[in-house]
């Protein structure tokens, strides 16, 4: 079957819709994740989503994987959100939970006796498992996350940048960090089911990090992060169909290529600004 034929299949279309929703969420949340220095905490959340999903698969079967991942991710995201801003303590707590979650997940998978494709999907991503019901759930969850994010975005940016000043201006800093933890947990749980736990970072971090290289406008940075995430996910799905391989290596490679390209552009911009400053000073 050619790629064009494959694209007309229902499960492929479902996967594409799921990917589009996931990329929008990741692209929007990404700049906040980067701004709050939460890359490691996203990785930890993904491993716990993996553990939750694997546990649910073992106990309740394939239908429960999504819920298991969601419960694992949101619980641990809340816990990480409650940790203080002291970087070192936060990092060590995340490291402890991350490795524990990974260990649990591997245990659950070893005990699972069902189809082996179900096993590795949560780690490296799978798209064939997405059905119409999943897509509908995903769309609803996506709209809810987007709606909440649109409401909290500005105070959240303020609180991430300058928690003290934001608090003095009346921003509920702690409550917002809990709200953001839930949004992030939900997004990570969706991501784990599509690109896999190992590669959630390449949607939540890489597009935002790439966008920050080429623009200083917060709005444009969000728009670019969404576009980059979309290109990586859709490109990754199409390429994986063609090659008959898991989608994550393709998503990761495309995201990485975008990042490298943006870094090069960013370096050019910085040099140009420096030259301009020198000319003005001289």
């Amino acid at each position, binding site marked *: 079957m050619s790629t064009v034929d494959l694209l007309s299949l229902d499960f492929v279309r479902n996967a594409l819709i799921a990917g589009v929703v996931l990329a929008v969420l990741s692209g929007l949340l990404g*700049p906040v994740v*980067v*701004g709050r220095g939460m890359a490691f905490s996203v990785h930890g959340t993904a491993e716990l989503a993996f553990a939750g999903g694997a546990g649910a698969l073992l106990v309740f079967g394939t239908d429960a994987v999504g819920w298991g991942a969601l419960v694992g991710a949101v619980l641990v995201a809340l816990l990480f959100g409650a940790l203080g801003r002291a970087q070192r303590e936060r990092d060590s707590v995340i490291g402890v939970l991350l490795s524990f979650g990974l260990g649990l997940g591997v245990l659950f998978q070893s005990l699972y006796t069902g189809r082996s494709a179900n096993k590795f999907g949560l780690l490296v991503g799978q798209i064939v498992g997405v059905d119409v019901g999943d897509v509908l759930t995903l769309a609803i969850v996506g709209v809810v996350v987007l709606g909440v994010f*649109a*409401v*909290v*975005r*500005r*105070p959240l*940016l*303020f609180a991430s*940048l*300058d928690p*003290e*000043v*934001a*608090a*003095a*201006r*009346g*921003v509920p800093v702690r409550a917002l960090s809990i709200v953001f933890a839930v949004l992030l947990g939900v997004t990570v749980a969706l991501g784990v089911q599509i690109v896999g736990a190992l590669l959630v970072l390449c949607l939540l971090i890489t597009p935002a*990090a790439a*966008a*920050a*290289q080429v*623009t*200083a*406008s*917060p709005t*444009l*940075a969000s728009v670019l992060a969404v576009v980059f995430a979309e290109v990586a996910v859709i490109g990754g799905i199409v390429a994986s169909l063609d090659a008959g391989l898991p989608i994550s290596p393709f998503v990761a490679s495309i995201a990485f290529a975008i990042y490298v390209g943006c870094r090069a552009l960013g370096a050019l911009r*910085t040099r140009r*600004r420096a030259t301009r400053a020198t000319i003005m000073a001289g």
Partner: protein
Amino acid sequence: MSSTPSFRLTGAEVRRGGRTLWTGLDLDVAPGEFVTVLGPNGSGKTTLLSVLLGLLPLAAGTCEVGGHAPRRGNATVGYVPQHTNVDPLTPLRGRDLVGLGLDGHRFGPALRGRAERARKVREALLQVDALDLADDPVGALSGGEQQRLRIAQALVGDPGLLLADEPLHSLDLARQRTVVDLLERRRREHDTAVVLVTHELNPVLPVTDRVLYLVDGQFRIGTPDEVMTSETLSELYRTEVDVVRIRDRIVVVGAEDRLVHTGGGP
């Protein structure tokens, strides 16, 4: 002096972690007055700002800001926090930082009033001579430039009271003078009261109306000439301290382990 004080503390006491930082503090600050808060680390200088911002309740006594109890989100109080550098890769321009002072606390997308918002941000940037920084990434700017933007952020809401925590820290002498000049201009032209927390009196000495000097729960309030004497500081530090005037500078000798007074200002 105007009849309504910018803020008023009566018998104010503050406790933190079971320790009383200061007690019995009476202080009336008039609009347009410039108060400099001095003292060693841990003496409760920043805590005073937290009280005025409504972030910390008093353990005893009363506090009124503009005639009301202090509360978070009071638009008539501007706050310049202790300096922290913005990460170089944060997508944030000068005008975005200033704009947060205007509506950063509001929920929901900003759909209306964009022109008015842009005008106010422009005006605040103009007040700190930073119009040319409007489109620059904040993280790529120098410490002094970032500090000017933070002051613009505090001024954009047109506050009647401006609180600044170590705004001169880590700035060279020329930048210190720029910041002091613009604070001075603000209070002269807009009658904004200024409370400035610092380790270095000299850069703000020419503009300071009154000094609040805090040491170990003790304090003195008065003009720089009244407070900055060998006698008063020796009492406060409970050790021999010499205060020497050299031209327009004040140098404090003794208690060096407690404070860093030298090194600031020409």
